[in-house]
């Protein structure tokens, strides 16, 4: 049968009229608590559901409640904590609760952005797991009426030397590349971290950005009674059945047998959906748009109905299927990819269907918006499910008691003052540059099409954040994803705040003013008190930093139950609240990159605070120690540095900047030299830190290095002074060697050839990928 059978569409359209005289109870066998447990419902939750229904559920109802009340869809452990996050600001066009958040970037433009995880699918099947992660987040963006125009990924893997890590890294990168490259949305940035705690449970967090005119902003709503629900895209199969529950369960030995719970992506189909949906929005033919993501038709329709405060009648038998013999339960819970729900007014539905068909998409009317407040499922004239909309969408929440793991506290409070100093600063620099967390990710991003759409002004690896221009405007959009999982592990509140601060610093270092945040909270099992403590504390840290930096959280994702097996049970991953941040450049011609541009430029250290070795990359990779407190954080000073740096770039004074992050000052300057293919000679002020290793390799919350022509140094100093920051002259750009002098260091510091630095920096990841 042709996929574009108009007869079938007409029949569907004609037969969505729901018969009068609704039978009060759906047919089918009732589900008991034991069966409900397989849908992820606890005994208490089952009892609550029965109370909401006023009777025992049938299987499909129990399954739908189970999916919507899963952690993935219902946020039952995180919702009370997430309420602590600031979500408002004059720049926010759309806060949390829709498919994605939207911030105003000026000139009538908005940027829709959101981040989501695909950790568990990627652990089981890295290529498809990562690919469908990209596909899912892109649908969230164009559901807002925005054209996706950039993707960034935050990835975590285990020890880089193991075969499993290399298999997962290679597969995840291929998956992201395969999907993003084909659909034609550039992958412009990201971060990749390695730690043995992610060996079994990697993290794949994908952030997408889309551009829209303010008036194009859409909502995932069903609108008024009488509107029609249109299903468009791929057919529904048994793939991904129960994915939301899968994502909310512990990853165990049995997970490898869960391959059917991982979906397969089709970027070609998604490209058609993307173009068709945006055209339909432009033509003003849709009332609401929603992606079918986790829990498929169940969550998309339930959420759309809930937003509008309406009920729906859904004809399950009209849903296009890939397989025969599927039950209502299977249809409702399938997570087949590349499917959307659109709502249309009755007088516009034919025009909408025609438009969608021109894109060779299958589009079927599957339901009507009702004046009642129920989610009713029908197979022909038979009622097969009948649930109140509001309780479906309001999962019970849990507030637990957290407790800090004393071992973590002891590690944080460990006294590092007596730690032996290394004897060769040059060797330390090469070791830190080659650490996979610091090393160049060029071998990865070369596999991503980062230029398609011809907006990428700052390419991956060239600066602290990606920058895209907006065609037809002077403005630019910057984006970054950041989190130091070691900081968060050792000090959850402090570490999460540092992730926000780092993201803002990265945006400022390209010249962008930070606007908003999307967060992806990757944690372990929340019923474990030590994990709950991490979640609770990290969210407080996000709150404090987002308030201080005026970057509200406009949406995000929570991924719990990320853990690994040990001999004695399960251990949580290092908590990783990935921060995705978006900023605006008023004039994209005024921007900065990290690579040194001109011989003779003066390097200036800008900011406040003392670098320290606690929780640092240096401590980890040179001393093998994961301990100490993360860098001291003065949120007000961090905010002043962000404003100072962004201002200097926006005023055209600074065009070369790099923050002091992982690996400290020495690594920051080395990266600037490698990226710019120019050497530098600097003197590190002895007063910067008590120990020379802290001065060179210690990390900080509010420091950055800028390089400016000599006559601009006074401007930098004046800007710093006006904000109460320090500007210290470090040295000059010259030759093809990096010379870092420190009076207290062995050999008086280090002196290395640029090519030696480059090979240390660029080798690690390429070798892991066998390139």
């Amino acid at each position, binding site marked *: 049968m042709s996929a574009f059978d108009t007869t079938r569409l007409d029949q569907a359209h004609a037969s969505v009229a729901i018969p009068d005289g609704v039978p009060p109870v759906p047919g089918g066998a009732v589900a008991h608590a034991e069966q409900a447990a397989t849908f992820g419902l606890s005994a208490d939750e089952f009892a609550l559901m029965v109370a909401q229904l006023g009777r025992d559920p049938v299987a499909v109802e129990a399954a739908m409640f189970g999916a919507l009340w899963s952690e993935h869809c219902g946020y039952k452990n995180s919702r009370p904590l997430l309420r602590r996050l600031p979500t408002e600001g004059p720049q926010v066009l759309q806060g949390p609760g829709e498919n994605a958040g939207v911030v105003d970037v000026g000139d009538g433009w908005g940027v829709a952005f959101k981040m989501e995880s695909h950790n568990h699918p990627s652990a089981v099947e890295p290529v498809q797991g990562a690919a469908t992660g990209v596909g899912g987040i892109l649908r969230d963006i164009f559901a807002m009426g925005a054209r996706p125009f950039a993707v960034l990924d935050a990835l975590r893997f285990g020890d880089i030397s193991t075969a499993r890590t290399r298999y997962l890294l290679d597969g995840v990168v291929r998956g992201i590349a395969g999907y993003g*490259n084909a659909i034609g949305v550039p992958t412009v940035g990201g971060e990749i971290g390695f730690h043995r705690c992610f060996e079994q449970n990697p993290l794949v967090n994908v952030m997408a950005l889309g551009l829209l005119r303010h008036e194009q902003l859409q909502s995932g709503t069903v609108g008024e009674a009488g509107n029609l629900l249109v299903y468009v895209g791929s057919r529904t199969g048994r793939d991904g059945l129960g994915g939301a529950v899968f994502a909310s369960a512990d990853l165990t030995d049995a997970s490898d047998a869960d391959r059917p719970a991982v979906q397969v992506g089709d970027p*070609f189909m998604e490209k058609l959906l993307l173009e068709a949906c945006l055209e339909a929005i432009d033509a003003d033919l849709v009332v609401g748009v929603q992606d079918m993501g986790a829990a498929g038709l169940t969550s998309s329709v339930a959420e759309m109905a809930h937003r509008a405060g309406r009920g729906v009648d859904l004809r399950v038998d009209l849903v296009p299927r890939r397989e025969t013999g599927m039950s209502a339960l299977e249809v409702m819970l399938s997570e087949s990819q590349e499917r959307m729900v659109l709502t249309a007014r009755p007088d516009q539905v034919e025009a909408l269907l025609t438009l969608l068909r021109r894109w060779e998409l299958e589009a079927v009317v599957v339901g009507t918006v009702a004046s009642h407040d129920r989610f009713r499922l029908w197979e022909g004239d038979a009622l097969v499910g009948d649930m109140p909309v509001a309780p479906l969408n309001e999962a019970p929440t849990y507030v637990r008691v957290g407790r800090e793991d004393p071992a973590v506290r002891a590690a944080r409070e460990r006294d590092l003052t007596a730690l032996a100093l290394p004897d060769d600063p040059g060797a330390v620099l090469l070791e830190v540059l080659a650490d996979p967390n610091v090393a160049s990710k060029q071998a990865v991003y070369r596999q991503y099409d980062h230029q398609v759409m011809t907006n990428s002004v700052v390419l991956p690896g060239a600066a602290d954040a990606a920058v895209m221009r907006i065609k037809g405007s002077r403005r630019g959009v910057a984006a970054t994803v950041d989190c130091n999982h070691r900081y968060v592990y050792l000090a959850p509140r402090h570490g999460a705040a540092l992730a926000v601060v780092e993201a803002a610093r990265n945006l400022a270092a390209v010249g962008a003013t930070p606007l908003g945040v999307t967060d992806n909270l990757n944690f372990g099992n929340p019923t474990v008190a030590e994990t709950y403590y991490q979640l609770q504390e990290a969210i407080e840290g996000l709150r404090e930093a987002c308030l201080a930096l005026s970057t509200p959280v406009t949406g995000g994702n929570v991924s719990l139950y990320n853990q690994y097996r040990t001999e004695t049970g399960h251990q949580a991953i290092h908590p990783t609240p990935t921060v995705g941040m978006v900023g605006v450049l008023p004039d994209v011609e005024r921007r900065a990159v990290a690579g040194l541009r001109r011989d003779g430029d003066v390097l200036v250290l800008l900011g406040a605070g003392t670098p320290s070795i606690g929780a640092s990359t240096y401590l980890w990779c040179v001393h093998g120690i994961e301990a100490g407190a993360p860098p001291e954080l003065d949120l007000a000073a961090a905010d002043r540095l962000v404003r100072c740096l962004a201002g200097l770039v926006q005023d055209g004074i600074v065009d070369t900047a790099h923050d002091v992050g992982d690996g400290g000052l020495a690594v920051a300057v080395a990266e600037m030299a490698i990226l710019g293919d120019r050497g530098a000679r600097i003197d590190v002020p002895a007063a910067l830190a008590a120990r020379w290793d802290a001065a060179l390799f210690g990390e900080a919350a509010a420091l950055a290095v800028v390089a400016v022509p000599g006559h601009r140094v006074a401007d930098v100093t004046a800007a710093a002074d006006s904000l109460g920051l320090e500007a210290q002259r470090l040295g000059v750009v010259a030759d093809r060697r990096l010379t870092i002098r420190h009076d207290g260091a062995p050999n008086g510091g280090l002196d290395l050839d640029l090519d030696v630095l480059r090979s240390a920096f660029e080798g690690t990841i390429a070798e892991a990928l066998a390139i």
Partner: protein
Amino acid sequence: MPSIAVLRFPGSNCDADTHHALGQVLGSDARFVWHTEHDLGAPDAVVVPGGFSYGDYLRSGALAAHSPVMQAVRAFAQRGGPVLGICNGFQILTESGLLPGALAQNDGLRFECRDVHVRVEHPSAFTRGYANHAVLRLPIAHHEGRYVADEATLERLEGEGRVALRYVRHDGAVDPAANPNGSLHAIAGIVDERGTVLGMMPHPERAVEPLLGGSDGRGLLEALIDAAVRA
């Protein structure tokens, strides 16, 4: 103002970029033509843009070669109309028989996105904007860009001066290390016997604005517009 048809297949993804470069940046009358069209609408030149036409789940460009619009492009090319195929467009042109040879998977078996250097090998209608043997820096982004052809074809291409662009080092020297995909004879672009059909793997439409890091591709697109005026 010359009118240039930019083909659109389901799965094209450089169509809008090409349209932007030819229209907004270079001031020609660029128009999209949908893959189901039998009539190109009397353009002065045709561009087959990059992407993954029909998903490229078979062999890159294989399905697109059989589309209605490519029938029209064949007829247009036979009349001597200028045709430029970029990346997937180059693949479509070889699959359509408008250019010889084929594009196979990169020898590194990975997608490659980066800037490369190519040398303008022979004067043609498309390279009139450059000095002979000029070295251009252009972006590539492909998984299947390794140009292959039998020995006789390669000899004929070389002998007839139909290798338009060749991968080289930044100083213009041929070096296997500068060949990003293992293309035979380091071929990055070829023209047909008439010299009016050019297929190339690098993306000139990504290199027309200094804001995006370079404008070495501008001459190629300007020459296409110029050829369109003469056609």
